[in-house]
């Protein structure tokens, strides 16, 4: 295992120390339980947004803590959801009297741990709502399964609901907006290589030199389909086809396109893929109104990419464009 780490069990704690140093103007990092909050939290009279999940997806979620986005993030161990204690501590640290919105990626572990925390916080009289993000079309949604996973779309939910909260929207409004983003977001990812979880010490799966994996998750879990490696045009077409067919995204739709690196893909390739995706969407008559290209929801050093589409309306565009000041997303201030 080739990593710039010390003790595998201490990776998250040590990374948080570095993150605290790197962004001391923006963030407050607490340990035991581990917690990243806005430097100015709690913000009185504002709905507080709390998210979190396993580590290894950086900049998600800590990199999205700050004015206009999250109030707190709860980093679990690598690829392991945080505990209820962490989430509860986060809720208590940032709630400003107007309620708390939990943005939770739909994984059994995350759902259960946040659920417990929400109960504990409610018992203390804090109004808590939960929105599950489940944008991954690789996974078939069904009553009998764990449902679709939350992947790249998570940051769109955090940005848009966070912008509303910053402007003073109430809990109902923030929750409705978050649900609207979830309902209008679809993603699909692929990988050229697997990643290695520090405490595991070997790659999550193996792919031959001429293979790729479509429908990859963000936890190093293999995808649904192993295929021969294709040129970028073919890869991106697979992703665009699957994502647009799912909602579906139709001619005339206005969208936000997130071209996301799984972590180890060079920006050069990511831009190339983004260009291909824009071309394919134009062919379909889908208008890309906003875009974001970069490593935002990652899976450690995994090489690969995901595409996320969000169907926009004027209100969502306005909230997307609103100022945001976080470690990983920053504009307008």
């Amino acid at each position, binding site marked *: 295992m080739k990593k710039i780490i010390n003790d595998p069990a201490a990776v998250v704690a040590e990374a948080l120390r570095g993150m605290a140093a790197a962004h001391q103007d923006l963030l407050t990092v607490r340990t035991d339980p581990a917690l990243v909050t806005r430097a100015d939290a709690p913000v009185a009279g504002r709905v507080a947004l709390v998210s979190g999940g396993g580590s290894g997806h950086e900049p998600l979620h800590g990199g999205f803590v700050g004015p206009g986005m999250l109030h707190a993030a709860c980093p679990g161990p690598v690829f392991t959801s945080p505990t209820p204690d962490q989430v509860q501590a986060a809720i208590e640290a940032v709630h400003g009297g107007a309620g708390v919105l939990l943005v939770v990626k739909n994984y059994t572990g995350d759902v259960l741990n946040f659920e417990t925390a929400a109960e504990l916080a409610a018992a203390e009289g804090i109004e808590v709502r939960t929105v599950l993000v489940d944008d991954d079309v690789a996974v078939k949604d069904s009553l009998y399964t764990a449902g679709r996973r939350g992947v790249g779309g998570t940051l769109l939910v955090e940005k848009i609901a966070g912008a509303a909260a910053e402007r003073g929207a109430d809990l109902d409004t923030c929750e409705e907006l978050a649900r609207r983003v979830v309902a209008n977001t679809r993603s699909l990812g692929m990988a050229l290589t697997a990643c290695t979880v520090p405490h595991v010490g070997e790659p999550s799966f193996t792919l031959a030199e001429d293979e790729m994996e479509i429908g990859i998750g963000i936890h190093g879990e293999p995808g*649904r389909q192993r295929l021969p490696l294709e040129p970028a045009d073919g890869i991106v077409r697979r992703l665009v086809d699957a994502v647009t067919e799912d909602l579906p995204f139709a001619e005339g739709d206005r969208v936000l396109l997130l071209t996301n690196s799984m972590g180890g893909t060079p920006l050069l390739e990511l831009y190339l893929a983004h260009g291909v995706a824009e071309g394919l969407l134009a062919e379909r008559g889908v208008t890309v109104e906003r875009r974001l290209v970069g490593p935002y929801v990652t899976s450690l050093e995994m090489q690969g990419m995901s595409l996320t589409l969000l169907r926009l309306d004027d209100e969502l565009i306005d909230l997307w464009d609103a100022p945001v000041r976080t470690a990983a997303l920053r504009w307008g201030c």
Partner: protein
Amino acid sequence: MGCSVEDVTAAVREAAKVVCAHRDELVELDREIGDGDHGENLQRGFTAVLAKLDGGGFDGPASVLKVTATTLISTVGGAAGPLYGTAFLRASTAVGDVSEVDGRVVVSALRAALEGVVARGKAAPGDKTMVDALTPAVDAAQSTVDAGGAVPEVLRAAADAADAGAEATIALVARKGRASYLGERSAGHLDPGARSTAVLLRALADAAGSATSESGRH
């Protein structure tokens, strides 16, 4: 006849140690069809449980189980944390204020644990989860107690059934948990949570066996 608070503490301690000793196996199983953290998560949690039990001062078997539950909930994370946490919590409630745990109490604790796991995780038998180890374990424990078995026999029967149930998950296609994302490709692998349940029950059974044989001696 039954298990005292000391016996229960010793049994949970033993189970905690054995689970930690299986860390790598559980990591490997979870790497195959999940995200590779199950062994690490349980090791972290049960190491914390051992530290908590060192504190002592438990007024009955239920409080040992309750401390185990809350410690697991606040340290394990992932799916297994809330599920095992709920299992121990419900078991604790089922045990109630008895000071000695007998076979019947064990069965009701196991049943409560299973119901807790199902209530939280919504998995049915056959979904390829820890439920597939726990369900036959409860049934076997019930039959054993109905046939007059004491705690060691009850737990041994539960562990045997859990082992078989876990093994049987190999053939299954997962419908819950992370392995479900693999669809058909999840078949052919042992479910890590079913395996850890079997490991836990075996450790409890072994501890109960030596505890009662010892107490039988004095």
